[in-house]
């Protein structure tokens, strides 16, 4: 959990993924499309990957990846991200966290 929180606070937009997860690819692409440059951390390539996955699950993230953090705060999984994007909240969150400017 500490490692998760630590990594999540290092950049305005942080996404935890797995290299084999294609939904993670979708969400990451969405962020690129919006002009945010998220920090992407692949759990399966991280020595502490397993514990991190457990930590993400305990935050309520199901499935555990993709797990999105904006401004250090946990936003949710793909379902949450899509819902927030549709009602315009995602852009606002990114702007507030200075991940994007317009």
């Amino acid at each position, binding site marked *: 959990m500490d490692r998760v929180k630590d990594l999540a606070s290092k950049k305005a937009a942080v996404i935890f993924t797995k290299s084999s997860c*294609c939904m993670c690819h979708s*969400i990451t692409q*969405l962020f690129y499309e*919006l002009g945010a440059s998220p920090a992407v951390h692949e759990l399966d390539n991280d020595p502490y990957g397993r514990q991190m996955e457990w930590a993400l699950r305990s935050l309520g993230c199901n499935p555990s990846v993709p797990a999105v953090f904006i401004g250090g705060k946990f936003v949710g999984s793909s379902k949450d991200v899509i*819902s927030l994007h549709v009602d315009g909240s995602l852009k606002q969150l990114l702007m507030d966290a200075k991940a994007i400017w317009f």
Partner: protein
Amino acid sequence: MPEASRVDSFCLSDFDQSIGNHLENAVELSGNPVNNSLKVSSQTISPGPVHLGTSDRLPISVDRSSFMYLEDRLSLLAQKVQSTNHIIIPSGDTENQEGSAMADASPRTDISTDADTDDKNQRFDGSQSLAAVASDSSDRSKDKTDQKTLRRLAQNREAARKSRLRKKFLQGSRSGYGNSSFVSSGRMQNPAYVQQLESSRLKLTQLEQELQRARQQGIFISSSGDQAHSMSGNGAMQFDVEYARWLEEQNRQINELRAAVNSHASDTELRMIIDGILAHYDDIFRLKGVAAKADVFHLLSGMWKTPAERCFLWLGGFRSSELLKLLVNQLEPLTEQQLVGITNLQQSSQQAEDALSQGMEALQQSLAETLSSGSLGSSGSSGNVANYMGQMAMAMGKLGTLEGFIRQADNLRQQTLQQMHRILTTRQSARALLAIHDYFSRLRALSSLWLARPRD
């Protein structure tokens, strides 16, 4: 084979008509035949906006897809069985073989063809009402004569084919395994191969029985086959039925909304109906979620939708961004704020769609890579088998993620509808929902017209 003979017997226009008759057959099964066939025909010939009654033709396409699904499988198996064997019975005395030869193996398909042809003929007769309403009365008598002639020709062809097959069987069975041209072929020596043929034949029989049952019951099929097959078959069929029911209910709600709008009902009343419609949309997304677990490929295939709708299919449903584009013009006048809102919504849904599409592409690529990586190891056969199994396991895992994509695609659709409702006024929302429904019901009517079109 049943499928080929069916096409043989009728020229293509009749084939099409028989598809239409599939529709009508299902309609007859589902309720009042006269009313329904009139409804169907009124859909196909009425110009301008299509105002549909309670049944939006979907009970028909439910049956059609299930019929076609079964008949396709039936014909594939029939082809496999017929093209590879003349003797299936591995042993037994000639007496039995002669007798049983008639009941077993491919002649069974002959028998079912008999029933088939009779069925078709019945449907042909039944089809007159559909054909008559849809075309000129002057064509009616001409059609009748043509069909009678075609039927007679079909029956003659059928009889000739049967007698040819019968001769072949008698020749074969008389000499049993002594017939050199069969025994000398390496394959017939292999008991495993013969076993395979046997099981194919059994499968064929099972499918024929399923088809019979489907024709009688029209909707549910309880498969006595292996569990996995029956599960997925049931999942697909169950969803088709639920979807048909959902469409009927939606039609009813939309009619209620239209009546309220035309009678200048109050905003409160409109809001009540609209909330009902939106909740009803929630229902179908929930049903799709369940169906995605049971049979994701059925949803992705779009076989539960009509052909024209299927043309526009994206991840198992409609594209929200396209829908919004169509609506913008119809919703005027919009305030500045509303216009911005709708434009943003359109852009957001487009972006989300693109993101999901890219994820799907990545999945396809990944799957292809997994399946195409050769197991070129210098290790022994056991190593290769382990490799193969490993690759298959990985591929299975990837397929499992398809459900997630459909789920998010539906989530996107649901969110878009709700956000649209939030941006618009009550009256605008009402017009939007009516416009959406009209668009899709025109697509469905277009599918009916297309399927019933005359061809030569």
